[in-house]
């Protein structure tokens, strides 16, 4: 065990900190601290341009292997990068899904041609992705997807038809990764394929869904004979479930560190507010602030423990299963703390028609944290059944 940063790490810290100081300014001033949870659809053009700026500085995809343009950054370096990024109020990463989910998935499961075509665009901050998993009938029961993919020999194309729902940032994306049934007669997690589908085509229609925040980050996405080239299925027809689950594993990996830094910023904002509006005098609020701090430290130590024991192939240990449940519950409580610290002011919007301030928007968004990416109930089932090996519940 070694819990300190080395002198080399500290040099790395100086490097990123000074790069951010001299680049996250000027035209990028407007996006400082923007684009986080609940605000992900805002300043999208500026944030995409920022991704390209990051790339020019060599700061996208730093954890990727050098052969794909990454720096093969160590865990320590990635921790430092995320810390400094958050400290500098770096905007929510528009390239997040590409860098942390699609990239690692293609590196693990994609063929050379797919890596050659997609990884450079992600690296350069030029292509943005969204996740087409959920459907009206397939939420927690993801394996119940009905969207179908049919292969047409004549054109050597897959034709995809069906409906996805709750697709975050679909309108801001260039591609959607879609799980669809390649074998129309199959059920459950058999007979699925994992497709890389360009969004800008006549077969794809996107309809925004308004959230209770008054904004719409997520969408319904309709596929009506949407085309996907034969080269754009990851793995074989029938491998879709394996690839889809592999991708979810990456969701619990290194990307958790950046998230914790956002959480730290939120907690700091709450503490500052509590000190200024006097609620910090209330012993109940003081205790909850201390608890929030403790929970955040626990998450950080756990992430670092999990990441440093990561399997050589990038697969995660069982410990990673506990993470989603912990952070989502923690964050939901943080949202409540923010409202309680704001007191009677928590109801007052910034403006019309439904303009939330940062903490209000965080509060509402954190209500969804315990739902997307596997609900708390499903997480508990996974922990009990997969990690503890308890008897499985009947699944219909």
């Amino acid at each position, binding site marked *: 065990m070694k819990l300190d940063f080395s002198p080399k790490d500290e040099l790395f810290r100086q490097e990123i900190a000074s790069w951010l100081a001299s680049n996250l300014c000027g035209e990028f001033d407007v996006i400082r601290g923007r684009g986080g949870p609940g605000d992900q659809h805002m300043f999208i053009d500026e944030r995409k341009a920022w991704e390209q700026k990051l790339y020019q500085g060599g700061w996208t995809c730093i954890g990727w292997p050098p052969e794909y343009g990454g720096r093969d950054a160590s865990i320590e370096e990635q921790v430092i990068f995320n810390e400094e990024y958050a400290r500098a109020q770096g905007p929510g990463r528009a390239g997040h899904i590409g860098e942390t989910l699609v990239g690692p998935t293609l590196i693990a499961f994609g063929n050379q041609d797919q890596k050659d075509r997609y990884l450079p665009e992600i690296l350069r901050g030029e292509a943005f992705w969204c996740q087409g998993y959920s459907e009206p009938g397939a939420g927690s029961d993801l394996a*119940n997807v009905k969207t179908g993919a049919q292969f047409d020999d004549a054109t050597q194309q897959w034709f995809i038809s069906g409906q996805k729902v709750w697709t975050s940032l679909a309108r801001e994306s260039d591609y959607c990764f879609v799980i669809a049934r390649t074998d129309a007669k199959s059920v459950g997690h058999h007979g699925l394929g994992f497709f890389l589908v360009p969004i800008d085509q006549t077969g794809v229609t996107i309809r925004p869904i308004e959230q*209770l925040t*008054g904004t719409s980050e997520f969408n319904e996405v309709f596929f009506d004979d949407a085309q996907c080239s034969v080269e754009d299925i990851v793995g074989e027809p029938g491998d879709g479930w394996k690839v889809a689950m592999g991708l979810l594993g990456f969701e619990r990996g290194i990307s958790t560190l950046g998230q914790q830094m956002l959480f730290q910023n939120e907690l700091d904002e709450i503490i500052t507010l509590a000190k200024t509006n006097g609620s910090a005098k209330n012993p109940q609020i003081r205790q909850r602030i201390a608890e929030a701090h403790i929970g955040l430290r626990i998450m950080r130590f756990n992430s670092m423990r999990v990441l440093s024991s990561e399997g050589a192939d990038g697969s995660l240990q069982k410990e990673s299963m506990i993470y989603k449940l912990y952070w989502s519950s923690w964050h939901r409580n943080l949202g409540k703390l923010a409202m309680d610290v704001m*007191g*009677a002011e928590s*109801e007052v919007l910034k403006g019309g*028609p*439904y303009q939330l301030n940062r903490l*209000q928007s965080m509060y509402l968004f954190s209500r969804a944290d315990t*739902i997307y990416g596997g609900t708390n109930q499903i997480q508990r089932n996974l922990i009990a059944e997969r990690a503890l090996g308890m008897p499985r519940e009947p699944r219909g």
Partner: protein
Amino acid sequence: MNFTYSEDQLTYRDTVAALLSCEVTADSIRARWTSAQGIDANLTQQLADMGLNALLVPESCGGLGLSELDFILLAQECGRVALPEPLVENAMAATAMLSEVASSDLAAANQCQDTLKQIATGNASVACGHWINPYVNMADTSHWLLLPHGDEVHLVSTQTVDLIAQRSSDPSRRISKVNWQPSRGTKIAGGQQGAELWRSALNRGALGVAAQLIGLAESILRRAVVFTTDREQFGRPVGANQAVKHLLADCAVSLEFAKPVIARAAYAVANSPTRADWAVSHAKVAASYAALLTVRHGMQVHGAMGYTWECDLQIWMKRCWAIDKTWGDVGFHKNRIHEWLLNPNALMGAEHTFDKSGSPSDESNSQQGAG
């Protein structure tokens, strides 16, 4: 001892509930969100015709002369339909405050009696800008405002004040800050009497919120039960899973346990108002806990659907979130409770659990502004 409601009380509640469930629907509430004033004038008149505005007003002033114990049942029904009209807060806090002045020896008694008669017929309305709340809901649709200046109580015509409108996270609420100048002509009470009036208004206001929260939460719970029965995943209703059922069972338990606390508080407010602080604070804390738990779990079991603007659940959830912080938040009310518990003269021990007055002998512990 009898913790049940009378036949009359229940019948009256059912009549009101029947009217509300016809007139106040999710669609009609959404229509109010985009209307200029945010209230339905017809419904307001209908409620006045049923005597609801003046339920707590003495019969001599044209009211029904009923008590808080009668009113909480109705407040619960108003919550159940998420009534946007400020009936509960106006009747429980403002109108009742006028009634107190009307039946006192204060010089303003006559003036208040006249105003009450107009309120009873639906020709006037009064809202309360209590010092505990930074904003007044629907001040612009009230004719009169009761406003604090130190301990003084002023009855002010809405036309003479500046209302700074704010947007509420609950689109059903139309809140504003009130800028105004006190004058001799507007003062209706002051000194110790004024302080007592504010204090009992706070208790009635908080009690009204507690009762509404229960009704709001019961609606959310009912919606959650229906949703999880209809929604299928893994080939069966999601509500068939214990993980879902138990969440909702916990809500039911906490809601049921909050109800007698509210009844007890209403009883204290009606029968020994100067000693009701702790009981009201307990009611507000219990209702708040139960309601926010139900909001949390009710939303959780809806999955992503509960996060949409389209899903009517938000109407109830946002009301709970907003009013939870009015008339004293949980921190304020917990402070009032522990102040008397930790008071050196507190009457502790089993023999005081059901003590008749139900509150500690020392009344100095319930001042304004604790917390």
